[in-house]
């Protein structure tokens, strides 16, 4: 019992140590690190919603069978401030997604990297120490 408690506390402190990389929720609770996926397909629709955005896409396999996937992104608010809106990802756009599949095996994944057909990354980040886009 005591060991279990120590284990639980240890796990909790790990979670807290990892806090700066948390999204709105723990992605490890929803997706499976053992199930990396690479999806290639076309955008069906994008939901820029809080707390997290979702990109719906059709993925065609080698036999031509089409499967609908949902890919989870982040809060759209920061993107809007960077000037990105729904026009950034119109229906029919070809994209590739690197991510991890949902634990329950459903066709959902997180979007670790989203890449256009020409190899450009979508939503590449604003981590430039010389600018703080949000502060005036």
């Amino acid at each position, binding site marked *: 019992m005591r060991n279990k408690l120590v284990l639980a506390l240890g796990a909790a402190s790990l979670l807290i140590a*990892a806090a700066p990389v948390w999204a709105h929720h723990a992605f490890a609770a929803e997706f499976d690190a053992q199930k990396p996926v690479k999806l290639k397909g076309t955008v069906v629709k994008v939901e820029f919603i*809080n707390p997290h955005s979702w990109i719906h896409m059709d993925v065609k396999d080698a036999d031509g069978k089409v499967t609908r996937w949902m890919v989870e992104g982040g809060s*759209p608010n920061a993107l809007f401030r960077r000037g990105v809106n729904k026009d950034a990802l119109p229906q029919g756009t070809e994209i590739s997604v690197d991510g991890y599949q949902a634990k329950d095996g459903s066709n959902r994944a997180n979007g670790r990297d989203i890449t256009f057909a020409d190899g450009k990354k979508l939503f*590449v980040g604003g981590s430039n120490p010389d600018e703080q886009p949000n502060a005036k």
Partner: protein
Amino acid sequence: MSAKAVALAIVILAGSLAAQSKSSQGKYVPPRTPDGQPDLEGVWTNVTITPLERPANLAGKEFFTPAEARQYEKDTVERNNADRRDGGAQADLSRAYNDAWYDRGTKVVETLRTSLVIDPPDGKIPRKGDRRAGPPPGFGRPPEGPEDRSLPERCILWPTAGPPMMPSFYNNNYQIVQGPGYVVILVEMIHDARVIPIDTQNAPRPHVDSKIREWLGDSRGHWEGNTLVVETTNFNDKTRFQSGGPNMRLVERFTRTAPETITYEFTVDDPSAFSRPWTAQIPMKRTEGPIIEYACNEGNYAMEGMLAGARADEKKAAGR
């Protein structure tokens, strides 16, 4: 230069910076609203990468030198960068999505303090019995329903959205609106509107009965010179700011110290959790509006995903 001389130079520099920040607070006279209140209105951001508590490797160092600050910013931005794909699958998954979705900031605070906590001077929250911030409710057992997941995941409360208000990894934006008898703070994260009644000599507005407990507590404000002072009590037993209890007394101070800056300070007093009151200082800088709505429950597909994940884990453990 000897180590002693370096230490002395740091102390002198720290002292002069502290004095500077105090005197700048004293000198600036903020504009007034049409009805004569010091004007705090507008949209503000408290984004910064200065940590709440002083990291162990900066113990004894209250201020960065400018060069150290730039290095700290560079290192922190690199560490935070969610576009990294190193560290294995678990680390990769915990970074969730590309860096563009985040808005953690890239700068330390202008005072070059090494922690947001300014009192005690060691920059550490004086937790009783070295108590760390506890795990969110529900962690440590598989969630059976939404109530077993944490408050932010349930879209109820964000631990930094306030009160008191602290920077987080995105949505660090606040709009302050002043009307007769009230100040309203619209918080982008979780989308709370704090409606703060203002006490005046002629119209005292005491706190609600101690039996009434609220997620955001019961806030009452008054003016001390150019500073808006807001006292909040009557928290419920689930808010637990930094592992504090429902009897936490919070005092926030908003002072416009420059045209584009509100110096925001808060003091937390809760003898059940802390050995003494402690204070943090965070600059709020004017930023572009508007506040964007954070309609969290409506889009929280992830709750279903996390509960489905827990059921999948159970099946796997049972060998089915």
